[in-house]
């Protein structure tokens, strides 16, 4: 039954896109009450909500594709590390404010390109989610660009911290632009985004912003990958233990 097989591939794809959004959203939400000042605290918390809302849309669609066997909460709360398929860059600890903004810039430029492409998907539901999320991403990118310029071209201290952040994150970037077998199959059907095609443009856009921010594009010889096949850094387990605590302790709990 080709239809069911296709549905199952799309379901897995929707779940991993949900994982990307949920895990990064959770990381950003850790700034709530820890922001450097009130407005920034509120801004980061609102960005986190956008990501968590995005995760709900992807998980909700996956639940629908499961034919009622799963709910969005099952995906978020009842899977362990090895079943999560988010990109590793999403799960890395939030670091200092410069570190968070470096990651956000990398992801915002990526998401603007990724979601624009996904909004052209032959799958109307994925396209609808992407068309909605891309509008919010434009705001995210405006903010992370502003901050990277301010910190990079700011004081000696802010510049050093931001440069260090980019140097530390850089090896996690190649994974973003790789396709595994699942995604390749869906790219062939016009459902998934062909992420390798986005890399050159991403690189150019990032180069433009970093140059203006007086930050050097790192050149690193190391790369880390594995998120898409469920191999994670040691950080994801700690994150999930906090994210899933209530649901694991009180199964079926509702607000």
């Amino acid at each position: 039954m080709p239809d069911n097989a296709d549905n199952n591939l799309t379901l897995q794809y929707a779940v991993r896109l949900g994982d990307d959004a949920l895990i990064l959203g959770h990381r950003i939400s850790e700034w709530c009450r820890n922001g450097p000042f009130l407005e920034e605290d509120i801004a980061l918390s609102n960005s986190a909500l956008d990501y968590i809302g995005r995760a709900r849309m992807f998980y909700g669609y996956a639940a629908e594709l499961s034919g009622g066997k799963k709910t969005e909460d099952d995906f978020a709360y009842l899977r362990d590390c090895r079943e999560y398929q988010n990109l590793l860059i999403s799960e890395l600890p939030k670091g200092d404010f410069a570190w968070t903004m470096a990651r956000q810039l990398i992801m915002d430029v990526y998401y603007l390109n990724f979601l624009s492409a996904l909004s052209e998907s032959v799958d109307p539901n994925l396209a609808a989610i992407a068309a909605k999320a891309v509008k919010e991403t434009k705001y995210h990118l405006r903010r992370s660009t502003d901050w990277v310029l301010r910190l990079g071209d700011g004081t000696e201290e802010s510049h050093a911290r931001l440069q260090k952040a980019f140097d530390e994150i850089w090896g996690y970037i190649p994974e973003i632009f790789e396709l595994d077998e699942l995604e390749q199959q869906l790219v062939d059907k016009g459902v998934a985004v062909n992420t390798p095609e986005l890399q050159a443009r991403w690189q150019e856009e990032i180069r433009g912003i970093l140059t203006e921010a007086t930050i050097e594009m790192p050149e690193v010889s190391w790369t880390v990958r594995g998120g898409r096949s469920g191999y994670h850094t040691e950080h994801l387990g700690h994150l999930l233990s906090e994210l899933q605590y209530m649901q694991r302790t009180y199964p079926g709990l509702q607000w």
Partner: protein
Amino acid sequence: MVAVVSNSAGQSDDAGTVDMRTNSDAEVSTIWDLLDEVKDPEIPVLSLWDLGVLRNVEKSLDKIIITITPTYSGCPAMETMRQDIESILTRSGYPNYEIRTVLSPAWTTDWMSDEGKQKLEQFGIAPPGHTKAETQTVCCPRCRSEDTLLISEYGSTACKAMYQCSQCKEAFCYFKVI
């Protein structure tokens, strides 16, 4: 949340507004009016219609189908709005209804009614301009000066930014164009 694609749209985002509210039978029309009582919990002067969240009301056999669309993906007010719709329909003797959430076309502030924009300004929140406008002027809702300054891209909710008026010095929220 159910991700559904729909072509039904109350207010069109182009100049020629298609108002579905005028093409309704008596019962549907009553429900439109009833739903005007449901307000945004964060901005209680705006009804769901003013906000552009309420997309359609139709009758299908024995039940009423209400179509809504979320503002921002993670807006926590959506759940409250949905509950408020349920509660008012049940209370008013319409127990057979279904609330559908559609994501496409994606919500835009262009769907906000003119009346809604006026109410926003009176409430102290600068209303959004049109998405297609070449420049976005943020006018102080207190003294109407156009000499205003962005303080933060986000305000108390995702849909708002914080501004300050350079004339009267009042800090105020601006409903962002999206």
